[in-house]
């Protein structure tokens, strides 16, 4: 229901406006960080952007955990298919 896009914080958060520059594949926009007042944000952090506001700080560790699992699954599957193909030939 809601388009949320990950973007990288590339500047500091301005005190009065809560705005900070966020980069999405080379495209930059000033995004309001006010909803992440509880998070300690610094340049290089990734946030989820929706209608000009950052809704959540993205956790690289959590992303990596899921990705490792999924890609591990993918690798195991590919190996298995390869093994199957080889056994077909022999």
């Amino acid at each position, binding site marked *: *229901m*809601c*388009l*949320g896009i*990950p973007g990288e914080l590339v500047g500091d958060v301005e005190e009065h406006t809560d705005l900070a520059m966020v980069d999405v*594949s080379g495209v930059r926009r000033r995004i*309001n960080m*006010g*909803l*992440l*007042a*509880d998070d300690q944000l610094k340049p290089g952090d*990734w946030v*989820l952007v*929706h*209608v*000009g*506001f950052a*809704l*959540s700080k*993205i*956790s*690289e560790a*959590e*992303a*990596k*955990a*899921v*990705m490792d699992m*999924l*890609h591990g*699954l*993918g*690798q*195991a*599957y*590919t190996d298995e298919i390869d093994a199957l193909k080889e056994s077909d030939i022999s």
Partner: protein
Amino acid sequence: MRFVDEFRDADAARALAARIAARCEPGRRYKFMEVCGGHTHTIYKHGIEDYLPEAVTLVHGPGCPVCVIPMGRVDDAVHIARQPDVIMTSFGDMMRVPGGAATFLDAKAQGADIRMVYSPLDALKIARDNPDRRVVFMAIGFETTAPSTAVTVLRAAEEGIDNFSVFCNHVLIIPAVKAILDSPDLRLDGFIGPGHVSTIIGCRPYEFIARDYRQPFVVAGFEPLDILHAVDLLLGQLAEGRGEVENQYARVVPWEGNRVAMEAIGTVMRVRPHFEWRGLGFISHSALEMAEEYAAFDAERIFDIPGTRIADPMACQCGEVLKGVLKPWECKVFGTACTPETPIGTCMVSSEGACAAYYNFGRFSRERVREATRA
């Protein structure tokens, strides 16, 4: 890591698809609802159904805030927009949504000053730059979007901008899910939960579903692998006889949600006693209105609004589609009288509506296409 492409890997998708197929019990059929229109969009845009076995059906739920706005509210908004000193501001999504009489695009063509904005803060800027005009923001969206509106109103109050107001149409996800769960003609095996709403409300509000309805509920991200992963987790829960709230999207969704955002909503808005949903009818406590303390920013109080009521068209079977009783193409008017150019029902209105997504992206026979695209 860009948190996007990594979750579009076709090798991992094939592996997940194999595991999903293996987890399906022979002869059993599974019906999962993705609550969120964003998921519906992702499913069709990436062709995710190509990876699912026939035993698994995805039912497209009510989580499209554009689709559920009743036609009368659109007419009310157009009425406000037509006041001579008003600038109506809106997300692009609302521009083509038909009311009883006109869309925003039609009203604009007839002379109303309606401008598209990317953010409610842009609407506030327009108010700041046009002190002699009254600027109204057409606020739509679930809890994901409501905090942005709330923060914008707080900022307007702080800066003393008195020519800015909000036509509040924010809706709440839990009452809608509950209405679906309580409908008698529905049989579901689990839910793919809305990821971005959950960044705000967290995962706790879904616990009643597991507790009272014994249904698995997996909060999921919006990349195609996220959705396959969620289906895999749902099947896993069913296989083990569990019905729990699980968070597949922990990289973005904290279990407790966003405290600051919930407080902003709580300060600026109140829950309405009831609100009409297109296709679903009236649902109690299912939407937000501006709080008394912020009456000065409430377009419903500032303008004399007709409060138009328009019944959903008779031919329309959106209610059944939204509850998953009918597939989009099983509706009598689908694709003939009701198309994205001339939508009759809610599901055809926005690109994330179930019917529009199926019409725009999935309107083909999978067998024929499999033949046609065979390398």
